[in-house]
């Protein structure tokens, strides 16, 4: 009962042996691998850029890092089909990119500039972009799970075979709405995938404050749905696991709870210096860095060279810099927007 997922234990920093090799999925082509890596690097660099903006006092609102979560965010979203719908949470920049979102749109929202999809009414990843099949979250944790379930139910009513995917943390899954949403999806056998991003902490709270079970995917048994726990830093494993669950869900076999075990490598948001995380824990997870390890693996597999990857990264950084330079110069939305659209027509 007290025992947690193995990944949760603080491991000696020298213990490379505990780090398993990355999975090579038969379902992916090398072209796809290049795309996946691109998305991961984009997510990572977006994060670095936001950190910089935050330090410079040019970002405001909560700046939530997703470093450590790239494999989970990208791998899960990449497993979705091109009519499927994403309900991302606050550490899923990678998913936004996979679903075709561009950096400029993300920045406009996050920095609440004129032209933002939300007109400055809200920030971070809370926007919706129906054309890109992205519906962002609200702050209240778990609230989007019943919404993603209902979205899937509506599609099924119309005979559409789409799948919705949403996310929750090791903390957020303790909310009542999470429970009601998952149970509703299970009872209705809805094509909804819930990715549990178990990144060891909920704000400052380690897992034992949040739950007492061994694996959060153990909850699947009690809901009567498919559940599995995987290493959330192993991109192709995440992809393969989600792909299977997505196809199951699409075939009417109901929802899945997929726990991806990873680590939040920064504070809850940038204001938080995460003093409460043991240094050794971070050192251990540093070695499991999902982006760096995948880069190395891709090189090892002979798919790209270090030079290819460096060039790719430089491109991404350039793109980001240009987008930021443009967006930060834009004004905030006009004050009048505050009085508009409390209701739609």
């Amino acid at each position, binding site marked *: 009962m007290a025992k947690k997922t193995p990944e949760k234990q603080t491991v000696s920093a020298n213990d490379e042996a505990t780090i398993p090799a990355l999975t090579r999925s038969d379902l992916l082509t090398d072209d796809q691998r290049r795309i996946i890596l691109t998305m991961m690097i984009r997510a990572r660099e977006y994060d670095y850029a936001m950190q910089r903006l935050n330090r410079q006092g040019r970002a405001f609102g909560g700046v939530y890092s997703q470093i450590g979560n790239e494999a989970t965010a990208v791998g899960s979203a990449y497993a979705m089909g091109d009519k499927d719908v994403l309900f991302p949470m606050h550490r899923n920049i990678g998913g936004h990119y996979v679903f075709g979102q561009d950096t400029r749109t993300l920045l406009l929202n996050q920095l609440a500039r004129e032209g933002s999809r939300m007109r400055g009414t809200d920030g971070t990843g809370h926007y919706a972009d129906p054309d890109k099949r992205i*519906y962002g979250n609200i702050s209240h944790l778990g609230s989007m799970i019943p919404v993603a379930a209902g979205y899937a139910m509506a599609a099924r*009513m119309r005979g559409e075979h789409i799948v919705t995917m949403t996310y929750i943390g090791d903390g957020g899954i303790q909310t009542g709405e999470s429970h009601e*949403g998952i149970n509703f999806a299970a009872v209705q056998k809805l094509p909804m995938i819930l990715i549990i991003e178990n990144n060891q902490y909920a704000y400052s709270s380690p897992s034992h404050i949040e739950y007492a079970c061994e694996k959060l995917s153990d909850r699947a048994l009690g809901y009567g749905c498919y559940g599995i726990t995987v290493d959330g830093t192993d991109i192709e494993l995440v992809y393969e696991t989600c792909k299977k669950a997505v196809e199951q869900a699409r075939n009417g076999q109901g929802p899945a709870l997929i726990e991806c075990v990873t680590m939040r490598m920064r504070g809850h948001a940038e204001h938080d210096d995460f003093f409460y995380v043991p240094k050794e824990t971070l050192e251990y997870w540093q070695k499991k860095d999902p982006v760096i390890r995948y880069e190395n693996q891709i090189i090892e597999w002979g798919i790209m060279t270090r030079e290819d990857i460096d060039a790719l990264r430089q491109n991404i950084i350039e793109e980001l810099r240009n987008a930021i330079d443009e967006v930060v110069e834009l004004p905030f939305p006009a004050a009048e927007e505050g009085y508009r659209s409390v209701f739609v027509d």
Partner: protein
Amino acid sequence: MAIMTYLEAIADGIRTEMRRDPSVFMLGEDIGIYGGAFKLTKGFIDEFGATRIVDSPISEAAIVGAAIGAALNGMRPIAEMQFMDFVTCGFNQIVNVAGTTAYRWQMGVPMVVRGPSGGGVGANPFHSRNSEAWFAHASGVKVVCPAFPADAKGLMIASIRDNNPVVFYEHKGLYRKIKEEVPEGDYSIPLGKARVVREGSDCSIIAYGSAVHFALEAAENLAVEHGYKVEVVDIRTLVPFDEETVLASARKTGRVVIAHEASLTAGFGGEIAARIADKAFEYLDAPLKRVAAYDAPTPFAPTLEKAVLPNAAKVRQAVEELLRY
């Protein structure tokens, strides 16, 4: 026109719209074979099937949340709270998810959350609450409180067609108590229009829901016994609020009693009073009076419930006070 009870009229409104628009469906506890706790959806599952009359687990947040998700995906869900009291368990979904979506996303959430509210039937504190003021204060949520069968039908159809979240308060005490002629077929009444249900010039009573009925009773008694001409305005919807009609009545009579069954403090009556005291001040010949439930849970025993809830006698007393002023 057919004679219908308040309950039948609501059912007729939903049925009519479900026949017309395949995107309308219902979600709630025991609404299928059982036909709902008040039998409002009796027979619906036979006509519309289990895909459109969805029995849900006891999970109000999931009911409302799933309705929101379905609404975002092109449907027009009607979510039933078995008793409106249980909306406290789906509260967050309504005020935070549904209520902010138009503002944040410029997208509609065409959803109706409906169910039986109100007291006077010997239920208990958890089956009698009038909570409409909470949603009126939420921003982004429309609030409808019909008092008559025909209005209930017309407002229900308008609520279903509205592209915004609507919380639709049915008063369980009225379900089978009142009957009237109700237009058949497609019939809708725009949200945000009050109705002067009795004309008068001596004093106005502004009311909604069950209070309209005891306001009318008070007005009638005062007419019969003293010849007073008391106007009764049924605001019908709290959000949007028909300020114009209310102010016109206040300006006409100069004396205003505001009545609702919900408890007094921070109830919607305060809002009405504030608007009148701001915008019709110069026309007022007497203080503004409110008649509402005592600030307590709605008690179970008939003696207590009767004492705590407002009624015609209490409205009458307030009107008389103003007329004597």
